[in-house]
């Protein structure tokens, strides 16, 4: 019971993180909700494996991003999902309205990046340092720097168009 309560507290504190990951890796609302639930499930499954060796946010991002990857191209897959009640749908819509247009455009451009780049730029925008991004992604710090430079150029040219 205590474990469940700890988990609920953790998820409630970090639900925004899950929301942002789902926004970047999906292309429609249905998939977004599906991925949201999948991430929560995977976090619960992996909750025992979290031993506090790393920061809780590092662990959460790793699980969320890994889940997003393994759900790539599974858009058509239909599993048994918990029906999302109307109030939840309305809340998601409410969040959608607070994202201003410029960020919506940015999201659209991030979605056009390749899978590797999506993860890196998301962590960068989340305010993670190069070292933290390297820990979460498994790429070297130098590699992260190189990739981020490339992403900046790519986004710039995409936005110009």
């Amino acid at each position, binding site marked *: 019971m205590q474990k469940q309560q700890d988990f609920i507290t953790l998820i*409630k504190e970090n639900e925004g993180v899950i929301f942002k990951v789902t926004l970047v890796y999906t292309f429609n609302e249905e998939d977004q909700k599906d991925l949201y639930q999948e991430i929560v499930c995977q976090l619960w499954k992996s909750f025992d494996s979290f031993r506090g060796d790393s920061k809780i946010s590092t662990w959460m991002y790793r699980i969320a991003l890994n889940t997003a990857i393994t759900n790539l191209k599974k858009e058509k897959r239909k599993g048994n999902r*918990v029906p999302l009640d109307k109030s939840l749908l309305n809340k998601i819509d409410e969040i959608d309205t607070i994202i201003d247009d410029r960020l919506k455009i940015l999201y659209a451009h991030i979605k056009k990046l390749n899978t590797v780049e999506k993860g890196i730029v998301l962590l960068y925008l989340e305010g993670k340092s190069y070292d933290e991004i390297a820990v979460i992604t*498994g790429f070297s710090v130098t590699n992260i720097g190189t990739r981020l430079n490339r992403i900046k150029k790519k*986004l710039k040219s995409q936005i110009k168009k």
Partner: protein
Amino acid sequence: MELDELRSEWQEMSNEIKKQKILTDKLIIDMTQERFNNRLKSISIPETIGTVVCFGVAILILLNFSKLNTWYLQLSGIFSILFYIVLPILSLKTIYGMKRINISQGNYRETLEQFAKNKMQFIQVQKWSYYLSFILVIVCLPVASKLMNGTDIFLESAVWLWYIPFGFVFLYFFSKWVFKKYKGASNSAERLLKDIEIS
């Protein structure tokens, strides 16, 4: 707009999102309980039924193998048995491979690599299943005919006069379709592996 500027705007948005509480305790519990249902459903029902049927047919041919009294019928029988045993196992193995990626252990790079490699493997097995299924369509007819009616259609029927030419024409178009069907998926997995390697 520079990415650094966007980063600060992103932070503002994050703060706003943080204030919006979507999840209730009940909803989180409901979502987590789904894992138990999923565990039961982790064995895909259609694939499992398919495998049981294939094994059943293989056993049936094996038990009646002595009825296949010519070398070509025996060869057809052996191919059918191997097909019905090996391919379902390979297929299930690759499906499990896709499902078994350990999300909690690996980092982003490792998970991506594993995902792309498993996907390539899955595509290869699916591709070969299609090609071999076609050969099976050809060889299972004489085997079935011999086992069910005792008729050797190689000798007692003119069906081969149209069956083989028709089969090869069909194989040509069928192969083209299979190649096209999996080309996109295969390319995207290859691209993913390349993106990981770029430094």
